[in-house]
C-alpha cells in the first residue's frame, strides 16, 4: 500500500472521524481536533513501528506531523539516502 494511504488508514482506524471524507491530505490534524498531544504520541509510535524511522524530539513539530501530506513528506525526507548519510555522520 502507498505510504499516504497507510497513514490515512491509520488515522481513520485509530482516531474517530464522524465524516472520513472530510479528511484531506492537507487537513490540519491538530486544528481539526483529530489528534491531541496524546494523539501525536500515537502517530509517532505508528511511524516508528511501521516505517522503521526514529522520530527525534526536535522533529516533533507541526511542519512534520500536522497533516497526512506533511507526514508523507517527512517520511520521504527521513527515508531518503541523504538523510541516512546525515544520521550516519551525526
Amino acid at each position, binding site marked *: 500500500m502507498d505510504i499516504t494511504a497507510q497513514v490515512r488508514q491509520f488515522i481513520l482506524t485509530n482516531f474517530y472521524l464522524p465524516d472520513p471524507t472530510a479528511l484531506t491530505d492537507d487537513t490540519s490534524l491538530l486544528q481539526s481536533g483529530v489528534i491531541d498531544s496524546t494523539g*501525536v504520541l500515537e502517530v*509517532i509510535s505508528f511511524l516508528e513501528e511501521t516505517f522503521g524511522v526514529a522520530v527525534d*524530539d*526536535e522533529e516533533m*513539530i507541526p511542519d512534520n506531523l500536522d497533516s497526512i501530506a506533511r507526514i508523507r513528506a517527512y517520511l520521504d525526507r527521513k527515508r531518503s539516502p541523504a538523510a541516512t548519510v546525515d544520521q550516519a555522520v551525526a
Partner: protein
Amino acid sequence: MFSRDTLRLNAEAEVARITSWLRETLGQLHRRGFVVGLSGGIDSSVSCALAVRAVGKERVFGIFMPEKDTSDDALVLGTKLAATFGVETTIENIGPALTTIGCYERQIQAIRTVEPAFGAGWKFKLILPSILKADRLNVTRLVVESPAGATTSHRLTAGAYSQLVAATNYKQRLRKVTEYYHADRLGFAVVGTPNRLEYDQGFFVKLGDGAADVKPIAHLYKSQVFQLAEYLGVPAEIRARMPTTDTFSLAQSQEEFYFSLPYDKMDLCLYALDNSVPIQEVARATDLPEETIRRVYQDIEGKRRTTAYLHRAPVLLEKVLAEKPPVRKAPVASVQMVEG
C-alpha cells in the same frame, strides 16, 4: 499603553463584587456555607478568604487532603491560612484510598515501560518542551530521579502516558469526592478554585478539581489573584510560594507541566490575545520576541481546542428540564479595574 498595570485591579471593589455574588449564589443553590479544599497554594487561599469575607468563618469549612506526593509545606501553609481566617478544618489523608484504588501501582506500571528499575525511593514528574525558542508540539516527557539522584528523561508511548495521567487523575477526583462528602454532611456548596489561566486553558481534571458549585476566581488572571491575596491578608509565605502542581513526587512548576510561560507573562499574553492588543505592545510588556508571542498564542488556542471537552456538561439528545432564569438582585459589573 499595554503593561502589567493593565491587569491591576481595584481590589476592594472586586472583593465586594465577588462576595456579593457568593452570598447571592449560595442562596440560589439553597446551601448554607462553603467547603474549600486547601492546598497551601494561592488560589485555594484566596478562594477561602473570599468565602469567609462573604458569609463568615462559621460558614466555611476547610479540608486538607494530603497523600504521599504532597509537598511538606502544604499542610503548614494551609494551617496558617485557616488560622488567619479562623476557619474550621479537618485533615483527610487520601493516600490509603489512592493505594487501594491502584493509583500508585498503575503509575509505577506505566513508568516501568521505560524505566524498569523504577520503584521505592524513585521520583518522577511530567514536563512539556519549551515552545519559546522553537515551534514544538506538546509532547510530554517523563523525568525520573533514582534514589541516588540521577535524573533521566524519557518519551512514553501513548498508552503508557495515558495510563500515567489517568492514574494520577485519581488524586484530583478523590479529593473532590471527599469535598462533596463534607458538603453533603454540612449542607454546604463546594468552592472550585481555578484561576482564569487554569480555567481558560483547561488545566484541571474533569470531575476532579474541575467540579464545583461555584468558582469565584475563574474570571481573574493569576496576577490578579495575587493582588486580591494581598488585599485580603493572605499570609506572606503563601503569596511568596512558587505555584506548583503538587501532584508528582518530583518538584514541578506549573510552567514546565502545562503553561508555556511564567504566570505573569501568560496573563499578559492571554489578555492581549483576547483583547487584540497590538503585538508590538505585547512584546514590550512581556520582554518577549514577537515570534515567541505568536507561538504562545498558537499554544493558547491549541489548548482551548483540545480541552473544550473538559468544559462540556453531559450532552442530552434534547432539552429535558425547563430553564428558569436566575434571579439577580443587582447587576454584576465587570472586573473592577484600577481607573487611569
